[in-house]
């Protein structure tokens, strides 16, 4: 469903000059699996996912999402993905229902079908009681629910979650993760980025460890355990990063 090949992105920065935020990243994600992007802050996760959602344009490599090229068919890509991150806020002066409805219209869903779907989603996410609440009056958990509803209103085959649990308390985070798990059962292709090991262990079928724009390791959890002889995900993660830092230091010398 998602095919990423040598995707790169560089930014101009005043202090450091041109920096590579993402350096030749390649991976594939199939339908019905959750692919985890694990990495510390600033590793390039968000950049990578933004490029997949066509908000940023890659400076190198290529990627296709649901069969559409992100570079040449951004319009089609956008209609076939649902994207949610901690940056995708909701409108303060719209009620939950209006907000989701509005985005449904942006995806040009037919009116009857839209109302039906809205009703279903609001029921499954247990949002019927907040449907007339203004965005500014909602708690963070409610907002996150609205965001999820917004993400899946057009029933996209591909879903991208960029650190969806950042800043949420345990209960809400758990609810979000449950919702994502439920989506996998529907056969969606899901990319999930996080810096929290627990979430990866619980949720992801396959993981890519990303650090400083590079993928250090990729594979399912048992595969990784086997490959690096390390059963603890956290230890594995630190080991990989340490290795990479050592390599960089070697190069610098």
């Amino acid at each position, binding site marked *: 469903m998602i095919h990423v090949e040598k995707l790169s992105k560089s930014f101009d920065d005043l202090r450091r000059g041109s920096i590579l935020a993402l350096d030749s990243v390649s991976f594939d994600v199939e339908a019905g699996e959750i692919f985890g992007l694990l990495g510390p802050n600033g590793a390039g996760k968000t950049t990578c996912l*933004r490029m997949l959602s066509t908000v940023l344009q890659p400076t190198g490599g290529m990627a296709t999402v649901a069969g559409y090229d992100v570079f040449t068919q951004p*319009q089609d890509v956008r209609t076939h993905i649902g994207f949610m991150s901690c940056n*995708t806020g909701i*409108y303060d002066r719209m009620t939950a229902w209006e907000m989701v409805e509005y985005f449904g219209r942006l*995806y*040009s869903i037919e009116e009857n079908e839209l109302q039906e779907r809205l009703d279903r989603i609001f029921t499954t996410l247990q949002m019927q009681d907040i449907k007339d609440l203004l965005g500014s009056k909602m708690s963070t958990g409610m907002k996150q629910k609205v965001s999820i509803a*917004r993400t899946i209103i057009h029933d996209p085959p591909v879903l991208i979650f960029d650190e969806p649990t950042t800043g949420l308390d345990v209960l809400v985070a758990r609810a979000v993760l449950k919702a994502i798990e439920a989506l996998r059962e529907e056969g969606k292709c899901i990319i999930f980025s996080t810096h929290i090991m627990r979430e990866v262990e619980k949720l992801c079928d396959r993981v890519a460890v990303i650090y400083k724009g590079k993928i250090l390791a990729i594979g399912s959890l048992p595969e990784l355990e086997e490959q690096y002889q390390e059963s603890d995900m956290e230890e594995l993660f630190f080991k990989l990063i340490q290795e990479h830092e050592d390599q960089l230091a070697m190069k610098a010398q």
Partner: protein
Amino acid sequence: MRELRDQMRDRRTLFMVAILPLLLYPAMGIGMVQMTVLFSEQPRNVVILGADDLPKHPQLLDGDRFVSNWFLIPTDADKLRVITDHKSVEKTDEKAGIPADIQSQKLLKEARDLEVVLKKHQELLDQWDQLEDQESPEQKKLLAQEITDTNVKLSKLFAESQIQVLILIPKGLAQGIERVSERLARHEPIDDDPAVSLRPLVLRNRADEKSKLAYSRAREAMDSWEKEILRARLSRANLPASLPTPINPEVIDLAQDDQLAANLWSKLFPAMLIIMAATGAFYPAIDLGAGEKERGTMETLLISPAKRTEIVLGKFLTVLVFSVSTALLNLASMGFTGRYMANLVGAGALSKIGDLSLPSFSAMFWVIVLLIPLSALFSALCLAFATFARSSKEGQYYLTPLLMVTLGLTVFCLSPAVEINPFYSMMPIVGVALLLKGMLLSSVNAGILYVYAIPVLVTSVGYSLLALWWAIDQFQREDVLFREAERFEVGLWLRHLMKTKDSLPSFAEAGFCFVIIMLLQFGVMNSMSTAIQAATDAERPTRMMQLLMIQQLATIATPALIMGIMLTTSVRKTFRLYLPSFGFLAAGIILPFLLHPLSLELANSLTWFFPKLRSFAALKSMSDPSQSIWLVLTAFALTPAICEELAFRGFILSGFGQRGRVWLAIVLSSLTFGVMHMIPQQVFNASLLGLVLGLMAVHSRSLLPGVVFHFIYNSLGVLHGRIPEAWVPENGLEYFVRIEQGALRYSWPLLLICGVIAVLILRWVQKQSQSKTDLSASGSSDSDSFGRRLTDAK
């Protein structure tokens, strides 16, 4: 629609747009009514010394007032308190109360002090007049010193006192006047006229607002009083009352009530409309641009399948609606309040500023028609700025200058001397303001104004489209959409600038280079003109040309070269220091001959369009035959050709073109090139030529054809001015050229031939480079349109 509803839900915006204007003006109206009720002017103090010497008939004073008959509005008499040293008046004062008495005593004392100093001052002045030539310079100086001393003392005393106007009546004035009147009545000659020898003295301080006001009132009373004396005198002498006004023209005011109203509205309406349209666009734009970024809803919107253009258009329309409705609501509320107020107060104080009835429906129609492109311009501009901004606060920083510029232009349009003309009608904002002003002012000669309505509308729409395009462009740039808070340190930035040199200058560097050139030119302008003025007449032209060369080298070539060397790795590439192929060189040689007649005729045919200018001395010296042709050519052709090409086709064009947008680079570089020429006519011509030059530089990848072109073009200009007036075209040449008003003009067959060949050559220039490289298609479409423009303009 969502954006609209979203904004409608925002209480602040709603308040600003709808509630505020509806409440503000009535509130202001109520405030004004109360003010006029409460407002009573403090009576000003006028002290008259020697009041006993005033003639008894006609009477000037009535108690501590001027006689109210002497004022146009009788109540004005209450606004001046007259303190006299009149015996009888002092008695009445005692009745009035002791404090008033004490105060007037104090004032009188101050007045007497002033009188003493004044007498001394006048004596000194008399001395000065008498001792004109005989005295030695030292004594003269001494006297002058004393005079200034007493003058300073006088004004100091006057300022310290509570007296606004001091009138000194000389002794025996009444008798003097009476005597002259009697003599006149008997038609006897007058030997001693009090109007010469016994003039009352009036002291005032024009810089003091109170004194100024009091003086103008006192003056009014005294003038009418003086006239009355004159009238009495004339009737006693059996002379006609019309003696002092032998012509006495009668003035008939044809202004009707609605015209008076129009006058007021025409001043107020356009200004209010523009300011309101701008402020109306201001807040929603910030909210929809920077605000969405701040709240994080921007990214949500971006990942939806809506196209960026659609998003911008949606936002733009919302802002537009708010801008228009703010303007209209404000105006409507203002109009109704104004009218209601006028009814309320009736013929009171407000009647002086004109009738406040509403303008006609046709005028209102035009207001709305013109408001839409105007609002569109503001909306698009505000949106572009707001998109660029990182936060709402930053958005306000960016937008405040926009408001300031708008305000400046509006004030400019308020001036009654500024009227619409073809040039102004092409300017943004100004055109609309002036057209509205004209339309509201009069319905009589509106016919001409409707002619202007077309260019005003067309250009307004054009400007708004341009601004909208810019806004959309902003929206498509990811570095604008995802700007993070970045630290800015000058040192760091400079180091970065030096460290990360590119082979070509960046866009910002090119823009900065242009700004530096403009600033330097501005700075040099003053010193240049003083230097030129310092030179004698004979050497002025030479000096001027020397200075021109220095100025070109210093302000245009030097910054570009320094920046080019410091900020780029490849000076050669930046300035296109390559040898061009022979074909381009040939094009550079032939094109100026073809374009010179075209641009000359174009400039001539457009003279009506631009505001008239004084002819510049520098240009005169160009055609001054006494100057050596070589010097003139060096100053006006060679130096500019090298300097300007280096700067504009070198550094600036390279910088603008760095992002790969060739056509944008050419247009921008030619625009900057034009603006550098400062004079509107030259700006226009130079911009067009800049297009040709930019095209050649880009396609030939060399600066040389441009230099050659520029040199030959300017030389032709010089030579054109030098053609002797007596020369008459012959041998078939008369079909192509003619002499008109002492200048060579070209006829249309020649122009047509030139135009056709020029377009062909430009096409060739493009094809040449296209066969060599795969330059973007946008470049070619631009040159086509340029060729078309040239032929169209002709």
